[in-house]
């Protein structure tokens, strides 16, 4: 870089001198410097605060997830444990519990009623996460001390049993110590079917229920040290466990099975992290850009005095790195401090305790990011500064001195992009995702840049004589030399876009979480309802003012031939062996005239009613169709309890198997299976254990064969987790939006000095306060509205893409917050713009001219 043209006798550049110069130069106007630093501070503070909250809340949610399973590791099987594996089971973990569970008929001695329950005979300190919640509370611990039992609350209500009543289990009579309101779930096959009754394991043998032929589930619960990687350990054990017919579950596997709420939350937190990163960048980048630009004059002066180009370059690079470092450190400290402050301020609103801890990872990321981004963005301007010639001083320093584009710029652009990809990767943990986000960001930036460019052009064309001077002057500021259109468009537009994006995504995700929390979801399932009982049960449900959420007929059938070929044909034809399995199992099929919200036709046409056509038009789900290699128009013959039915595949459906409810691989139209043997399943929702108990009692009294499954106990735990997840989503987006606004304010605020000189000149020339105010207002009004609008449009597009491709949820945007954000951004921009020129307006021109501005 030293190859500048001035043939000055070579002089050694001392590093010390460069640092000294950097420091001296910064002294010139500390208050102005502070303004620039403040933007860096706020940007980094936002980033650090959001990251720290993100890390801590993620931990909180993980801990909450642990309550779903109650231990770090659960190993279970349905046979007594073989001797060779027992030592292994006894060696795992730091704390161990074990449980035997099985269905059994128990007798409520007081009322004389018999009922199927799920007995869980427990020994040890399980659950290690969460608790058995009982009324009275101490029963959860005390029942282990004697011949006591804990009984599902709804069950107690149903049989009008009270604490201290007795319950006969096998040959033993237990005293009911408490009603069970909540227990970590076991989703094994045995769970769910019957209400839970806990007894101490030491009494199990005496009940006489464990004997040859008894069907007992054996579970072993383990707690590990915090730093044990349980998933890894479990994977290692898998083969051995498998050999012993045991299987395991960890918190992680449970989360994966729990549906999408956890994944959605993780993705949302990543998104927030990415937004925070960009907010940090905006804060830092916009301030360094403006700062360096203002230094052009000083650099030219230095050059006149004999400072080499690369020396000038280094002086300012050092200076900016220093400013970036100081700003970032203060910002990181502030961001961490906010974490401690906020929970105190919001104490009354927080539904649960937020863990507060300094996240060194967040702090480190904040500081590194602050320094690197300030250097990179400074470089962008500084490399062109290498070419500033001393002559610049002599000419008007107000002139835009823009030397020919330096090819090095592209290198710097590349570095910036690479850097953002890298940091995005740290947040998102996926290269394609971070590349995607970066590309989206570049596109957004490009659109804003184009908009700014167009704006300048259009305004230049539009501004004409007949307009009032004030309007012309205000608009002209947008394109005249020393304009700030591009930089403000970019920072205001991007901040608005991110804020809106969070607003949109947040409401969509909250809807999603709400959908899966039990409020609107079935928590009571009745099955084996016979056709002649269906009407009665629906009426009964309505009588209890409970909703019939789903009511489906299920017909069992077998597949007999595919396009005329039976299993025997396929057996001979080894090449198409994959189809053989299709004939093995029974198909549970339903019929209806329309699709549900969880289904979408991807091929063919849905036919909801079988006309007189010989072949019945059926619909297959895409996975089944793919596995069976079945195409539209293929003929399948189903054997419905002895009656063959020829069907033709009329459509292929995509089924969202995650959505709550019943889904089917094969769906028939109405008008065919009505008479076929079938049973019905009804899904409903009860508001309380009491309601559920009364309802079940009424159903069973009238229809003894109908089985009711009450998911209430399990769902209570789940609901708590989902509540927290939705709260975390709201909190994080609210907090990011607030910090986004602050960063936005800061980035508009740093434009303060851009206009001061002009305003002073105008004042000197006789401009009134009002005129200057108007001119400024005009400029910022235009900038504010246009960039806010562009930002919102970008956010709409971005949220659509996120909804469709990342979260895979229905896109549905509430425009009210968008309009609100538009107004807020526009008003904020104008207000800050006006505040920026307040100093000039309130003082006489001469005072301002004299003082160093």
């Amino acid at each position, binding site marked *: 870089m030293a190859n500048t043209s001035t043939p000055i006798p070579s002089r050694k550049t001392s590093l010390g001198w460069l640092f000294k110069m950097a420091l001296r130069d910064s002294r010139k106007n500390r208050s102005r410097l502070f303004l620039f630093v403040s933007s860096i501070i706020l940007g980094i503070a936002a980033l650090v605060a959001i990251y720290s909250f993100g890390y801590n809340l993620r931990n909180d949610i993980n801990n909450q997830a642990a309550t779903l399973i109650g231990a770090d590791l659960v190993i279970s099987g349905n046979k007594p444990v073989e001797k060779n594996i027992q030592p292994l089971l006894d060696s795992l973990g730091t704390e161990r519990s074990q449980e035997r569970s099985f269905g059994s008929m128990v007798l409520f001695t007081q009322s004389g009623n018999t009922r199927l329950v799920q007995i869980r005979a427990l020994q040890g300190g399980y659950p290690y996460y969460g608790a058995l919640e009982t009324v009275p509370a101490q029963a959860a611990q005390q029942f282990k001390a004697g011949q006591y039992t804990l009984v599902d609350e709804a069950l107690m209500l149903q049989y009008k049993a009270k604490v201290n009543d007795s319950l006969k289990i096998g040959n033993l009579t237990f005293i009911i110590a408490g009603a069970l309101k909540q227990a970590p779930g076991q989703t094994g096959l045995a769970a769910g079917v019957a209400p839970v009754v806990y007894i101490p394991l030491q009494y199990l043998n005496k009940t006489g229920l464990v004997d040859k032929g008894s069907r007992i589930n054996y579970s072993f619960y383990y707690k590990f040290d915090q730093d044990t990687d349980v998933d890894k350990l479990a994977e290692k054990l898998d083969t051995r466990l498998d050999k012993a017919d045991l299987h395991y579950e960890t918190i992680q596997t449970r989360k994966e099975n729990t549906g999408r709420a956890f994944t959605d939350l993780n993705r949302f937190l990543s998104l927030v992290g990415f937004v925070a990163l960009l907010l940090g960048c905006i804060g830092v980048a916009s301030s360094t850009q403006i700062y360096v630009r203002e230094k052009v004059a000083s650099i030219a002066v230095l050059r006149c005095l004999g400072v080499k180009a690369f020396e000038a370059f280094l002086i300012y690079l050092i200076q900016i790195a220093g400013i970036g470092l100081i700003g970032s450190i203060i910002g990181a400290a502030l961001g961490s401090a906010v974490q401690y402050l906020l929970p105190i301020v919001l104490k009354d609103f927080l539904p649960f305790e937020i863990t507060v801890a300094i996240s060194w990872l967040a702090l480190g990321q904040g500081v590194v990011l602050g320094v690197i981004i300030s250097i990179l963005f400074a470089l962008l301007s500084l490399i062109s500064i290498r070419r500033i010639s001393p002559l610049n001083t002599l000419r008007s320093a107000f002139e835009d001195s823009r030397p020919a584009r330096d090819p090095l710029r592209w290198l710097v652009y590349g570095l910036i992009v690479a850097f953002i990809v890298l940091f995005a990767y740290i947040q998102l943990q996926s290269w394609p995702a971070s590349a995607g986000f970066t590309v989206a960001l570049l596109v957004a930036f490009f659109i804003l840049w184009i908009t700014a460019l167009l704006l300048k052009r259009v305004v230049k064309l539009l501004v004409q004589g007949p307009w009032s001077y004030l309007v012309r002057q205000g608009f002209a500021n947008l394109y005249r030399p020393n304009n700030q259109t591009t930089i403000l468009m970019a920072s205001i537009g991007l901040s608005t876009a991110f804020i809106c994006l969070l607003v949109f995504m947040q409401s969509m995700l909250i809807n999603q979480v709400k959908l899966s929390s039990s409020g609107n979801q079935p928590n009571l399932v009745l099955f084996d309802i016979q056709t002649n009982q269906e009407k009665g049960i629906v009426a009964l449900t309505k009588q209890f003012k409970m909703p019939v959420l789903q009511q489906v007929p299920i017909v069992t059938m077998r597949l007999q031939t595919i396009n005329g070929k039976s299993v025997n044909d396929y057996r001979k034809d080894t090449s198409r062996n994959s189809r053989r399995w299709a004939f093995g199992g029974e198909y549970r099929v339903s019929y209806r005239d329309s699709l549900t919200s969880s289904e979408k036709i991807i091929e063919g046409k849905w036919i909801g009613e079988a006309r007189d056509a010989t072949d019945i038009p059926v619909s297959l789900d895409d996975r089944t169709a793919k596995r069976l290699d079945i195409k539209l128009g293929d003929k399948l013959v189903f*054997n419905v*309890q002895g*009656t063959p039915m020829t069907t033709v595949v009329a459509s292929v459906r995509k089924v969202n198997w995650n959505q709550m409810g019943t889904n089917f691989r094969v769906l028939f139209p109405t008008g065919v299976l009505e008479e076929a043997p*079938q049973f019905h399943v009804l899904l409903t929702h009860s508001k309380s254990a009491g309601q559920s108990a009364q309802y079940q009692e009424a159903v069973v009294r009238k229809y003894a064969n109908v089985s009711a499954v009450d998911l209430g106990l399990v769902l209570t735990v789940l609901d708590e987790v989902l509540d927290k997840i939705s709260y975390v989503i709201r909190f994080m987006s609210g907090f990011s939006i607030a910090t986004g606004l602050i960063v936005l304010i800061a980035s508009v605020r740093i434009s303060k000095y851009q206009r001061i000189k002009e305003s002073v000149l105008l004042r000197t020339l006789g401009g009134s306060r009002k005129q200057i105010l108007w001119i400024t207002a005009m400029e910022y009004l235009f900038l504010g509205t246009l960039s806010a609008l562009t930002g919102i449009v970008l956010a709409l597009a971005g949220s659509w893409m996120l909804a469709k491709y990342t979260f895979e949820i229905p896109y549905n945007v509430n425009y009210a917050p968008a309009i609100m954000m538009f107004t807020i951004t526009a008003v904020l921009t104008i207000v800050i713009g006006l505040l920026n020129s307040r100093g000039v307006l309130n003082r006489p021109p001469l005072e301002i001219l004299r003082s160093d501005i």
Partner: protein
Amino acid sequence: MIQHHLKKILTLAAMAALVACSDSNTKSTDADTAKSAEQNVPNQSAPVKTVLVFGDSLTAGYGLEDPEDDAYPSVLQQKIKEANLPYNVVNGGNSGETSAGGLSRIDWVLKRKVDVFVLELGANDGLRGVPVKTTTQNLQAIIDKVKDKYPDAKLVICGMQMPPSMGAAYTADYKAMFPKLAEKNHMALVPFLLENVGGIAKLNQADGIHPTKEGAKIVANNVWKVLKDVL
């Protein structure tokens, strides 16, 4: 997660249905899949009679790789063939079915002529804790329907037992239900369908409920001991 549970439960419903026993339709109705060999037999030799095994998953051969061949009704078919008897076995098993489900289904299945009716239902009732009284009523109603429609049909009932973990009182009542029904309706009784199979780990699938291929052979033997005399 809810979904998860629901799925489990539905599976469970399915399983429950499966649990039951029987001989059902899988092979059933000869029409279809049933082994062509057997079907041909009837066609060649003059009058072919039908054995309907009406039951749940035990009959349907739930979980077997090849229920067409391996479920116990199929094994019975082989035995019949070996004995050179003019019977075609129809598998009327429906996984997850309870006695109430069977009662709803019986009319549909009885559309075809039945000469020997083997009833294997009630296992799912027991596992779900349905009161023995209810199960008895339903099974009786099924038997009545068969008698009504085919008064000449020979009747067989398969006894079932509940694991001791269900509690002594219930298991005793439950076990007693089948001999009572057999006596009342003059049916041949298979004392315990899963004799020498139930509770023996290696003869059952991983769920501990449904017999393996080997288990199904023993089950077929249990039934055959009674059925051969009926035929």
